[in-house]
């Protein structure tokens, strides 16, 4: 039970400042990246008209997100599609990684979710400035009344925090629940059910929610 508080880290010094890297999170993220690179290589190796299972799975994923992005953004070019689809793929497999023994979810670390949330924030606002022009972008903060400006600004920051913390809280909560329940019932029967619920079911839903919200925030900025 004591392992709840401890985080294995690599600490080293660069130019007088201390850099702290969370060892477990990094390695798990690399594993997820390796998985998707391998999947992509295998799925697109021989593209036939009648696809093999890997290729159909890839087409399903790509097709679904392409439709969702096209519905939300109404753009003729698919500029945002790779970014959005990658976020979903990364978070989907990351959330499910805890089911495999000796592996754990990198999204259990607030750094992972917060960094992708900030990335989405930057993409959304950069697109907003590029599409609407700087003046109109600033004016939109004063909608509907001038006094709403500080609230709108805080609201934008709140969006980033809410999507990041939502995914983090769900994953962290799930892993702690599994840890505590396994400790209480001596790891009999129940833990695989919990892993299936938290890792597979809730992990998929929360990855989907994070990605959809990023997409929606980008679309709100562009329109």
């Amino acid at each position, binding site marked *: 039970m004591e392992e709840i508080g401890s985080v294995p880290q690599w600490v080293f010094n660069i130019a007088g400042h201390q850099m702290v890297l969370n060892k477990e999170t990094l390695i798990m993220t690399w594993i997820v990246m390796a998985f998707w690179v391998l999947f992509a290589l295998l799925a697109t190796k021989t593209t036939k008209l009648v696809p093999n299972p890997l290729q159909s799975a890839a087409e399903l994923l790509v097709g679904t997100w392409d439709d969702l992005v096209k519905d939300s953004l109404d753009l003729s070019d698919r500029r945002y599609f790779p970014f959005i689809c990658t976020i979903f793929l990364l978070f989907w497999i990351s959330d499910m990684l805890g089911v495999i023994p000796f592996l754990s979810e990198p999204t259990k670390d607030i750094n992972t979710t917060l960094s992708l949330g900030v990335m989405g924030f930057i993409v959304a606002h950069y697109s907003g400035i590029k599409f609407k022009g700087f003046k109109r972008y600033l004016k939109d903060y004063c909608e509907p009344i001038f006094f709403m400006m500080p609230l709108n600004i805080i609201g934008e920051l*709140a969006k980033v925090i809410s999507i990041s913390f939502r995914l983090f*809280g769900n994953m962290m909560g*799930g892993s702690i629940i599994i840890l505590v329940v396994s400790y*209480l019932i001596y790891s009999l029967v129940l833990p695989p059910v919990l892993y299936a619920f938290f890792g597979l079911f809730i992990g998929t839903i929360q990855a989907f929610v994070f990605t959809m919200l990023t997409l929606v925030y980008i679309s709100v900025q562009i329109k």
Partner: protein
Amino acid sequence: MDAEFIVKAGQYIGAGLCMGFGAIGAAVGEGLTGGWANRSISRRLEMASPFTRTMLVGQAVAETSAIFALMVAVLLLFTDLSGNGICASAAAIGAGLAMGLGAFGSGIGAGYSSLEAIWGASRQPLVGGQMTTTMLVGQAVCQTPAIFALVISFLLIFGNYSGIPAWPYSAALIGAGFAMGFGAIGSGWGGGQAGGAACEGFARQPRLKGALTTLMLVGQAVAQTPAIFALLIALMLIAMGPKEGNLLVSCAMLGAGISIGLGAIGSGMGNGITSESACKAVSRESSVTRPMMTFMLVGQAVGQTPVIFSLMISLMLIFGNYAGPPTLPGAMALLAAGISMGFGAIGPGYGNGITAAKACEALGMQPDKTGLIMRTMLIAQAVAQSTAIYALVIAFVLMFVV
């Protein structure tokens, strides 16, 4: 005063809180079920015995959370915890709060599921058997927060606190009780409303069973998220609560528990009614099934923002640095920060849920206007969250400026 007396006193207070609060929810839920069962029977006299059977089954499931509360209360009455150190007193009170309040929402929610199941069966008698299955699934998922509360109660009761000084760890334990107790109310009640709507939709359109069950399960799962946050904070308070510190630390721990506990009520209920409305809309207009899932998830997710603010404030209060002198104003400021964010997240969470629910309904009426309705919903939710942002600002001011 001997530690033994303090611990026993705590145990008895905890037992009282546990059974007292725990009896409310299940009773109300069962009463709702029974009342609507009667109404259904009066509509279809020939189905009196299957309805009565379904009613009894539904009531039995609604009873489970009260039985959990009874179990914890009896444990508190008759186990001898005085060997566990003086913090066991606060642990017992925390356990009583957690299980007592935690049984409240699940009991009422389970009642909603079964009442809709029986009423739906009265309108569509041929689906009786399958309706019971849907009802049980919906009720089972909305018992989850009560199960979380049971886990926290057990952890609190059977923990070993020997050698740990009374304060501030007692504050952390009571805070854990607040967090899980209040935090389970909204998710349990909301989840139950979603289950009820799925049963009603199933009665309306029996061929939509798969789609409705999926929508219900996904909606309920997302509505459990505030309870999961509450569980997270409760576990952190128990496992990583400070063993030594001054009045500042005590009040910070209490504040953290209150913040996430109260904060989860509004969002949990709001997410539940969003999911309820989504299921109802799909049953009336089956062509919106695919976009409705996405829409409901976005509405629920944005509606969870207030509870995420509460989570953030709780985490900051738990992991804060309290090196200053233990003054009464300083301590009260930390407690007030938790109270501010806790209560402050109830209204916006529930309001966002109402907005998202009506938006799902509107989507059912205008299936091709997804973009327009989603944008309006997001704007409305963002404005409704402004009071939660005020509460967050006041909490920050109380924590850092004072």
